[in-house]
């Protein structure tokens, strides 16, 4: 391990985020590098001071009661619109038109974190392995076409679902084709997209992992993975795209599957 690596990893060590192997590497480096040892000492002291300090801010009681007041009251009020008691001060969020507010909220809801579930993790690992396998020469596509109406029927009879195939070329995600893959011993449809040089595999199957109403995000072996469920199907998107762009992809797919819904 060199000093540049150590400089990053020593923080993970302090934060208890390092696995045993890397923790040993950092400690071994620190034992023979006085500069890094000195950094570790200083950052540990700073981290300790911050942990001991009270850096949280208590929410004012007035804010708490304002939020409480906005929740529907115990007395049944059918179809009452949920409204916050006090309108926002001086047009704070006035920039939001109703539609924009809705779509921004939908975007926010498309995040969800950290699935610590063994079954889910196993599938995530398999999905990433399938993604890596697909990147080897000649393995990416069984049917190669940018025409969604060719890809969709190709899956007929090969898998027990009709995976939705959407054309997102206009959104910057090119449809490359489809592939039959196997996850957890079951045949799974993979629809392949590309953004710039980055391949995205979108695996679609019935019951593949835990059902999620929101998008569960994780990272496996450096690949970003997004999993969500929609109308009885499970979707797994895998790519080396960064989280933001893969999130955008997921949003576009969801939006294309629900054309009526504001995305």
């Amino acid at each position, binding site marked *: 391990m060199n000093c540049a690596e150590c400089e990053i*990893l020593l923080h993970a060590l302090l934060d208890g985020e390092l696995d045993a192997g890397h923790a040993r590497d950092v400690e071994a480096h620190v034992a023979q590098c006085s500069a890094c040892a000195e950094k570790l000492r200083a950052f540990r002291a700073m981290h300790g001071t911050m942990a001991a300090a009270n850096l949280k801010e208590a929410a004012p009681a007035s804010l708490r009661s304002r939020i409480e007041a906005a929740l529907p009251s115990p007395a049944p009020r059918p179809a009452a619109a949920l409204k916050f008691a006090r309108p926002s001060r001086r047009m704070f969020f006035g*920039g939001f038109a109703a539609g924009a507010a809705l779509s921004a909220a939908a975007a926010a809801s498309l995040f*969800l974190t950290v699935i610590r579930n063994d079954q889910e993790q196993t599938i995530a690992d398999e999905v990433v392995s399938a993604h890596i396998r697909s990147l080897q020469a000649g393995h990416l596509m069984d049917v190669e076409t940018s025409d969604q109406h060719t890809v969709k029927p190709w899956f007929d009879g090969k898998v027990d679902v009709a995976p939705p195939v959407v054309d997102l070329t206009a959104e910057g995600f090119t449809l490359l084709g489809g592939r039959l893959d196997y996850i957890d011993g079951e045949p799974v449809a993979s629809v392949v997209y590309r953004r710039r040089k980055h391949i995205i595999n979108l695996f679609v199957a019935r019951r593949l992992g835990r059902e999620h109403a929101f998008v569960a995000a994780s990272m496996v072996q450096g690949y970003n993975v997004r999993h969500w469920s929609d109308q009885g199907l499970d979707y797994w998107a895998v790519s080396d795209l960064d989280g933001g762009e893969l999130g955008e992809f997921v949003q576009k797919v969801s939006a294309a599957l629900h054309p009526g819904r504001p995305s």
Partner: protein
Amino acid sequence: MAGYADCEHDNARRFRDAALPYLDDVFTLARYLMRNAADAEDAVQECYLRALHHFDTYRGPAMKPWLLTILRNVCNAEFARRRKQEVSTDCGAEEEAEDVPLWQEPQASPETTLLRQHDDDTVRKLIAALPQQFREVIVLREVNELSYQEIAEVAGVPVGTVMSRLARARAMLRSAWNVAEGTAP
């Protein structure tokens, strides 16, 4: 239909139980991001409004990072709106300077080994003085106590980016820490 009002009420009760315990966490992040108490309160209120709106489809295990993600989006939308205003009136570049390194990386020298002890207020001020993306990662880690994976989700970046930002942020904080209130190295 027996159910609608009951269901709505039940939903609200579950939302109250699930989301309100994190109000201080959400307000804390808002306070560090928005820099001003009244703006922070508005952002928190907006965050809870949106969370409630989407709560009936919420299935996830981790409420705190979900709320913080929404809060961060609310704050960023507000920054974007202000930036647009500023551009149109062609003044101020307060938020643009975020990516410019304003701080020197500390030199490893014996003088910086010993950390000065600061009171809570000073530590808050030091954090508040960091550029936005570094301030955010420090607060999510040291104050909101999220894991790296959770921070990555909230900030919408890979875990590797979280790690390098955190290293940068702590290095900046450390140099500011030693300069604050007294003997510069």
